[in-house]
């Protein structure tokens, strides 16, 4: 086999792998999309079809599921609520988390390990465990549902941002800090003028993952909005409008809503993915 055909084969294999990954990642989502355009009869049809078809085999799309969810006021408001709650949670988690991560990753002080463990300890219990305790805390403070969610979501976003950012700060070469200090910068100046921009890929990545985690949270939202329906977030809204029709679960509508609320997140990823640029540190050390 000559070198050229070897190259062609390896390239083909590579692209086959990529296609397999694409299909694997997207298939359930595609299945949801497919189901969201099916009427109740089409959903129950056996065997299931890859595109919405009637029993006679003709392709027929059913749009009523989408119309129904947008007629539903609770659902539309819930999109705004989720954006607000997830957005603010992410910003706070990144802010507090990057402060803590800089201290843990680059500064010298006593009790570093204990602090790391303490922060990690926040993620060691299932959310349902602290549910009753958190509820008591919120009632004591007299918080309304939206701030309650923002604060309590820090329980799972803050440890995550802190830990991941700490490991990134640690990886950054010490020379960068030293050279900045030689130039007369205070540690805090070094932090926000030099180190923080260098961790941009990590900030974007952790921010994105925190946002999605908050966007998806169900249990706390369900509990805290029980007395304040106007503050319901998307997962709660979807779960509740599935309960409104007692007869049967509106599966097509759930799928339509799932598709609708996934699109904003995909758009967000599209906007930010450019920020995840390769080789930022390599360039910084060289230059």
């Amino acid at each position, binding site marked *: 086999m000559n070198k050229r055909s070897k190259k062609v084969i390896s390239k083909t294999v590579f692209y086959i792998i990529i296609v397999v990954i694409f299909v694997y990642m997207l298939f359930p989502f595609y299945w949801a999309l497919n189901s969201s355009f099916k009427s109740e009869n089409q959903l129950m049809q056996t065997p299931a079809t890859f595109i919405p078809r009637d029993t006679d085999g003709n392709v027929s799309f059913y749009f009523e599921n989408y119309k129904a969810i947008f007629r539903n006021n609770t659902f539309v408001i819930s999109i705004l609520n989720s954006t607000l709650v997830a957005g603010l949670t992410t910003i706070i988690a990144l802010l507090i988390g990057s402060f803590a991560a800089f201290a843990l990753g680059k500064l010298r002080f006593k009790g570093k390990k204990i602090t790391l463990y303490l922060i990690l300890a926040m993620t060691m219990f299932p959310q349902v465990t602290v549910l009753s305790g958190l509820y008591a805390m919120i009632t004591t403070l007299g918080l309304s549902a939206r701030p309650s969610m923002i604060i309590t979501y820090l329980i799972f976003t803050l440890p995550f941002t802190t830990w991941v950012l700490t490991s990134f700060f640690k990886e950054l070469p010490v020379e960068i800090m030293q050279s900045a200090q030689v130039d007369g910068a205070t540690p805090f100046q070094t932090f926000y003028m030099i180190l923080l921009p260098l961790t941009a890929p990590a900030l974007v990545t952790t921010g994105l993952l925190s946002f999605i985690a908050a966007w*998806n949270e169900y249990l706390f939202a369900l509990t805290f909005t029980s007395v304040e329906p106007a503050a319901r977030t998307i997962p709660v809204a979807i779960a509740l409008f599935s309960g409104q029709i007692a007869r049967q679960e509106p599966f097509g509508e759930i799928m339509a809503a799932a598709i609708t609320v996934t699109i904003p997140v995909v758009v967000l990823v599209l906007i930010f993915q450019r920020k995840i640029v390769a080789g930022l540190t390599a360039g910084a050390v060289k230059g």
Partner: protein
Amino acid sequence: MKKRVPRSNLEKREQRLALKLLLPAFVVLALVAIYPLGDVLFTSFTDREFAGGEEVKTNFIGFENYANLLGITIVELPPVLDENENQVINEKTGEPEFERAVKVLPRDPHRYKELFQYNWFGKRYVVGARDPVFLKSVGNTLIFSLFSVFIETILGIFIALVVNSNFKGRGALRTTMLVPWAVITVVSARIWEYMLNPGTSGFFNMVLFRLGISDGQISFLTDPSWQMPSMIMVDVWKTTPFMALLILAGLQLIPKDLYEAAQVDGASGIKRFFRITLPLLKPTIAVALVFRTLDALRVFDVFQVLLGKKMYSMASYNYTQLINYRQMGYSSAVGIIIFIFIAIFAVIYIRMMGVDSK
């Protein structure tokens, strides 16, 4: 008294700055974790019930909840003897017969139910537990975490490496990668539930039926031998993107010149992966592993939505005790046990990985 003198002014300043920077995190920690956890710890020593209309008196019962959750006993099963004092052999299986576990397990003051049986030097023993369902949920969660995290890590590294190489459609794949993670967990569980339907209206049964592999009637969610693989499959799909994205970010911090140098030296692709990529990626993978494992040990949504009361994870058992049975004291004890369990696990795990070194 000896006073510690900081070596330099700079170090002193750094210490003070570190404290200031950590303060907001500590405030949050106290508010959303320490206070509620303290409340739960206190409740776990009581027989409190969740608001049941009229006020029910709450009693302090010490460690009884814990004893009920963790209490186990081991009893030898006596063999079943015939009139000649020989052990009866089951005709169908050819195995020697033993008494039924219910007969030998203690009932007073606490009732023990069978957890599992085992043989030891020709004798048969039964392990009884006061709450076998809880202990089984611990086992389920461990098996689930082990397999799903392992598969996710391998897949995550693989996908991250593919996305990190240069090809057309790289951006599209990077976006695609996040779709499973972005779909709301409760909803994605529903999507899978629908795909796993018994009968050919479900996707998997339809495909297996079309391919002639099965009769298309597999009950993925009710057949005990299919439940765990189904859960692992759903979780792997949902959380591999998390792994892949973190590892990808780590990959991009590896200086390109290292690879160039290796290429000049004539190192093969596989060699480069094991000599350069993997060692430099280790800290990132370790952090990702810690988070994924802790996450998997707390798994709730998928078990709750897909299996309900058919099979429990630790967290879904906790939820059922709290919401369905309104046993606030008992469920608090479940939560505290899970917390201690995961904490011990985390410390050992982090030590092993060396995440906190340096």
